[in-house]
């Protein structure tokens, strides 16, 4: 049985079926991501002064990933245009570049950006103990300059067993530069280039800590939003890569030989999805990395 309107347009809608389907799907996706972005904005607006982290993400890496996704949008359109011009070889190469861009994006996210967060530790200090940790927080200095106070000490945890073992009464942390030298004016603003933890190790008593954890979703509303939105986006990228790979494999070649316009339409629909995924990233990047 042949599925109707895969190549020619339906007389009543003026569109072939898959195009109607993808736009309905994208409308539902807009609502999904729109809800998540709204949640992020409201959580951030409601955060107490100093409680919302800044400068924890690696901006150059995020910029590179943004450029990779924009480049992949260009190549997927070129792949589609090549099919329209019946240049299958060019289509094949453009699609290969698109798939590679998607794989590189996911590789950077999963092998570099996320693991870097998992290895990082943060301890929110109780209000009545803030003075005790003033040498690492520098709140007097911040108050003089009219800036929001710091309530978290972060860095690399030297004794990870302290997170689970109740008998361990303190955390040993190799401080981030912001806590190692908190009165340095250069630390008043977030670092947007990656700066590793220092060799300065301090001991933080558990009794002085309101809450402590690695930079996981449960660390804060910020990281919960970050991992949810970038994770969901990453799944969409993975979905796109799988579809493109399917269309790039010999299945695509066979379809091209049978009906090139049908393959062009499939690539167009997948390309629309890919553009939507890239468009979501265009909003994720400034929201999480820059602002």
């Amino acid at each position, binding site marked *: 049985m042949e599925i109707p309107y895969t190549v020619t347009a339906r007389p009543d809608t003026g569109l072939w079926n898959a*195009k109607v389907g993808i*736009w309905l799907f994208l409308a539902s996706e807009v609502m999904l991501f729109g809800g998540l972005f709204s949640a992020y904005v409201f959580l951030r607006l409601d955060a107490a002064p100093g409680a919302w982290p800044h400068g924890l993400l690696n901006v150059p890496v995020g*910029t590179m990933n*943004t*450029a990779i996704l*924009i480049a992949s*949008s*260009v190549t997927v*359109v070129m792949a*589609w*245009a090549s099919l*329209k*011009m019946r240049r299958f070889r060019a289509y094949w190469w453009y699609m290969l570049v698109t798939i590679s861009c998607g794989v590189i994006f996911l590789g950077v996210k999963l092998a570099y950006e996320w693991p870097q967060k998992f290895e990082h530790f943060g301890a929110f200090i109780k209000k009545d103990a803030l003075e005790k940790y003033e040498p690492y927080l520098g709140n007097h200095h911040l108050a003089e300059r009219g800036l929001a106070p710091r309530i978290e000490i972060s860095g690399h945890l030297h004794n990870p067993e302290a997170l689970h073992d109740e008998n361990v009464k303190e955390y040993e942390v190799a401080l981030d530069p912001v806590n190692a030298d908190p009165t340095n004016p*250069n630390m*008043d*603003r977030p670092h*947007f*280039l990656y700066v590793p933890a220092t060799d300065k190790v301090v001991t933080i008593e558990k009794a002085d800590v309101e809450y402590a954890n690695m930079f996981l979703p449960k660390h804060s509303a910020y990281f919960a939003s970050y991992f949810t939105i970038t994770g969901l986006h990453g799944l969409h990228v993975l979905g796109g890569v799988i579809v493109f790979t399917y269309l790039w494999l010999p299945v695509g070649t066979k379809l091209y030989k049978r009906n090139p316009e049908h393959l062009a339409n499939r690539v*167009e629909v997948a*390309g*629309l999805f890919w*553009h*939507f995924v*890239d*468009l979501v990233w*265009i909003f994720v*990047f*400034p929201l999480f990395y*820059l602002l």
Partner: protein
Amino acid sequence: MSLKGFHIVFISVSTLLALGVGAWCLWVESVADAPAFRVGAICSFLSAVALIIYGIWFYRKMKRLRIII
């Protein structure tokens, strides 16, 4: 809307992003005294120009090929 139309929208939004990142880099440079961000600003503005040129080229090419929106 076809892929062509969506691509033009996407390139327009990307251009705005590049301009925004450039402005953000200039802001960081001014408040945090980080000269490295001047290079970032220049790269971002150049990227915006490149995207505009590409967008115009793409639109003309598609028009020439008569791949309609």
